[in-house]
């Protein structure tokens, strides 16, 4: 039998299974088990008390589940609706300043959620700046980047000729979109929707600043139990419930994603995306301007906030950026904080991409691919507050005290980034024509060589995008890692969080200025990566 006599299939082929890949995935899964499940289960084991199971029979719990799911669905649908046009524009056309647009859309995703909450609060009229609408607006803003990156990465790979063929056969733009583009994008759409749903149903920072009784989440309930009641047993039960519910949704999405995957018609190496022409130019301009308006308005509100003092304009918060609280252990200078953040983020990105890429390869190549793909999304379902407590419990005291190695914060950040890495890489890898590898093998390439021939380009492209995202996520992360803070060297998000917890114009003003610094740093990272990728492509 030759490698080529197999019929062409449209659904994803379980390609040449390799035991080697499964073993690498086992190591990556071990990382997740060690740093995700062990801490969570340690908290449960340490505190569980059967009487807390009564929580599962309380109507308030299920009201929270219902309202969180409702809010999550609305947030997810609106995020897709708002983000898909710009995703398509950036993926299909060579738009002047497209890299800047993508970088700006990424900024809200990686800013600490509390900061986005503050920005939306400052932006919206007082009538609407809290409640369901405000929370959903903040969630859309935060998660547009998920769609742009996850769906965009795959969309860019599609061969525009399929679309042209459909057009020449008389199909209008919407029919073409529905019949040729959407089916090919489906796995990335499922991945993005699942991620956004998980982020928004487990939201905490946004809900604390913008929420009302109409927007509870289980994570908020866990926050209440660990932060006010010290009801750790109850927190464990709610954390397990959240893991189960969100985990089920993520598992379902992973299943759908693998079911709908197909090898896409890949654009051939050469000529790059076309510039928009004629009516397209108007469409592109409208989509880009509306997107920029949505993304820039809250950032502008933050910038304005950093320049306001009690109703008048000031540059005090910027000029005093490094002198506020100087000499105390509370705040370091922004430069010091940025360098701590950057060091942490490099390590986190390396870990997240190693683990995420390994899982992604395992997910498309092994028999248990769906399980592996779902496992990689699990960090989204694990309560950040519980994870923080558990990490300190397991890795923050003798005999296994990893705090002084400085790795623990990076590990916590990497865990948060793994699902995004996976989301960016799996659809892209699945789109590769698996016969390439067989051809290479048939021509005598050794297995690794054959794998690289088939997947190398996609791995590098998707991997670089994932690394940039992971780095940026770590820069802005302020969840589980807030339990692992060293007072002497706080990261930027921790500094911002501390400032927002006390009164005084300088506190909010400086926090807003620091948030702008973080936003610029994030946008810079994304732009540099985009630039590097463009150089590679030439």
């Amino acid at each position, binding site marked *: 039998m030759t490698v080529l006599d197999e019929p062409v299939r449209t659904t994803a082929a379980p390609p040449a299974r390799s035991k080697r890949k499964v*073993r690498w995935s086992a190591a990556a899964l071990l990382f997740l088990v060690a740093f995700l499940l062990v801490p969570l289960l340690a908290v449960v084991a340490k505190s569980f008390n059967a009487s807390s199971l009564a929580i599962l029979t309380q109507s308030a719990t299920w009201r929270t589940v219902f309202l969180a799911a409702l809010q999550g669905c609305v947030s997810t649908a609106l995020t897709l609706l708002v983000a898909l046009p710009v995703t398509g524009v950036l993926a299909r056309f060579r738009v002047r300043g497209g890299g800047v647009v993508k970088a700006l859309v990424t900024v809200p995703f990686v800013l600490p959620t509390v900061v986005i909450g503050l920005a939306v609060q400052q932006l919206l009229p007082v009538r609407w700046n809290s409640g369901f609408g405000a929370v959903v607006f903040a969630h859309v803003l935060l998660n547009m980047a998920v769609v742009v990156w996850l769906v965009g990465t795959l969309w860019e790979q599609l061969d525009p000729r399929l679309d042209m063929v459909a057009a020449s056969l008389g199909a209008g733009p919407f029919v073409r979109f529905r019949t040729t583009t959407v089916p090919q994008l489906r796995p990335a759409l499922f991945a993005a929707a699942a991620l956004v749903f998980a982020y928004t149903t487990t939201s905490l920072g946004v809900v604390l600043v*913008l929420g009302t009784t109409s927007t509870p989440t289980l994570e908020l309930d866990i*926050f*209440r139990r660990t932060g006010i009641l010290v009801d750790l047993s109850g927190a464990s039960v709610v954390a397990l419930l959240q893991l189960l519910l969100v985990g089920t949704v993520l598992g379902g999405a992973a299943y759908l994603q693998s079911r709908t995957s197909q090898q896409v018609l890949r654009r051939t190496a050469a000529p790059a995306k076309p510039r928009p022409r004629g009516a397209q130019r108007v469409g592109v301009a409208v989509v880009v301007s509306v997107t920029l308006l949505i993304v820039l308005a809250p950032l502008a509100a933050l910038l304005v906030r950093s320049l306001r003092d009690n109703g008048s304009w000031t540059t005090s918060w910027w000029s005093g950026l490094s002198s506020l609280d100087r000499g105390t252990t509370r705040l370091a200078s922004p430069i010091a904080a940025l360098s701590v953040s950057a060091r942490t983020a490099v390590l986190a990105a390396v870990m997240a991409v190693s683990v995420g890429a390994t899982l992604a390869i395992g997910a498309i190549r092994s028999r248990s691919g769906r399980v592996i793909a779902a496992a990689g999304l699990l960090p989204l379902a694990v309560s950040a507050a519980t994870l923080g407590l558990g990490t300190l419990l397991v890795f923050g005291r*003798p005999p296994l005290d990893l705090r002084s190695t400085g790795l623990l914060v990076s590990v916590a950040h990497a865990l948060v980034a793994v699902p995004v890495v996976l989301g960016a890489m799996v659809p892209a890898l699945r789109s590769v024509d698996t016969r390439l590898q067989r051809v290479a093998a048939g021509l005598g390439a050794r297995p690794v060589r054959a794998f690289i021939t088939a997947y190398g380009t996609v791995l590098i492209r998707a991997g670089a995008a994932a690394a940039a995202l992971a780095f940026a996520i770590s820069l802005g992360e302020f969840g589980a890692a807030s339990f692992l803070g060293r007072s002497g060297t706080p990261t930027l998000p921790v500094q911002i969080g501390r400032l927002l*917890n006390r009164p005084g114009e300088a506190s909010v003003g400086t926090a807003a200025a620091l948030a702008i610094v973080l936003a610029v740093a994030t946008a810079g990272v994304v732009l540099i990566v985009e630039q590097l990728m463009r150089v590679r492509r030439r």
Partner: protein
Amino acid sequence: MARSRVFAAALLLVSAATLAGCSSGPTAAVSSSHAPQTVTVTLLTHDSFAVDKRLLTTFEKQSGITVDIQSVGDAGQLVSSAVLAAGAPSGDVLFGVDNSLAPKAVAAQVFSPYASPNLHNLVAPLQANTFGGVLTPVDYGDVCVVVDKTWFAAHHAVPPSTLSDLTKPAFANLLVVEDPALSSPGTAFLYATIARYGSAWKQYWTRLRNNGVQVANSWTQAYSGDFTAGGGKGSRPLVVSYGTDAAADIVYASNPKPSTPRVAVMHDGCYRQIEYAGVLRGTAHPAAAGKVVDWLTSQSFQAGVPMAMFVYPARSGVALPSVFTKWAPQATHPLQLPPATVAANETSWLSDWGSVMGRA
């Protein structure tokens, strides 16, 4: 088998990391018989903890103790993590447990007995507050209703002066409070009303509700969103916040500093919060941990407490900065509940409050 080799390698990695962690870890302090004794003490605290770095360095030089400050989220999360690790702690000494959280930590046997020689230097009412000899008071502060003076002046109105004023029509729709189940100043304000009204507290809250009180999820939401003097676009000139806000309003203003703050404190209905430090049970360095508690209550540390953390020093005879004496005097008759009463009733109070406010 190859598979087991991978697991073996992973195990090796983990143990290598462990070794690395232990060898440089703060708890594995190295002492040699020749060099002067040095020990590292890990101080677990919350995000609001701050100290002048020079004070820290001076203490470290004089005592031979290196203090590794680890902040563990907010006060509640700090206590939760200590409760989980009771007996085998992730640090040696803990600062930041307040009178509402202390009973839970003490009941979980988080602390070892320690009697600081500084106890008798503390202000008289605090000396006996040791929760059976395990905790040492370090500072205290009040949670009060904070008033936007500018707003009331502009509206030619007189601000409220008592808790019962808040239920009058003159102050309808003017107050924002934090959800006591989510935010510790909110919890403190609920306790203030329970301390004042006893079993009639639910009626008081019904009146507050009918008078249009707004409930926020967090202090940040209330202060920077709903309060008129928090820099946002809020419409409520009364907010539950901290008694020292007026001092912070001046200290954290741009230069030149204003001569008067924009906010004032309503002195009735303030709830007193006391923050404690304690030696963690299971520490390998109980003596050095005790020395850190002594340092936290020493004259030099206590003198820096107001400006570093915007609370009052527990030690008596410590001079306050003028911005405190002038604008942020402590409440003369603060409200308090016995910690044991709080511990016994907290859950039911919070759920009753939820029912009264239609937030269950």
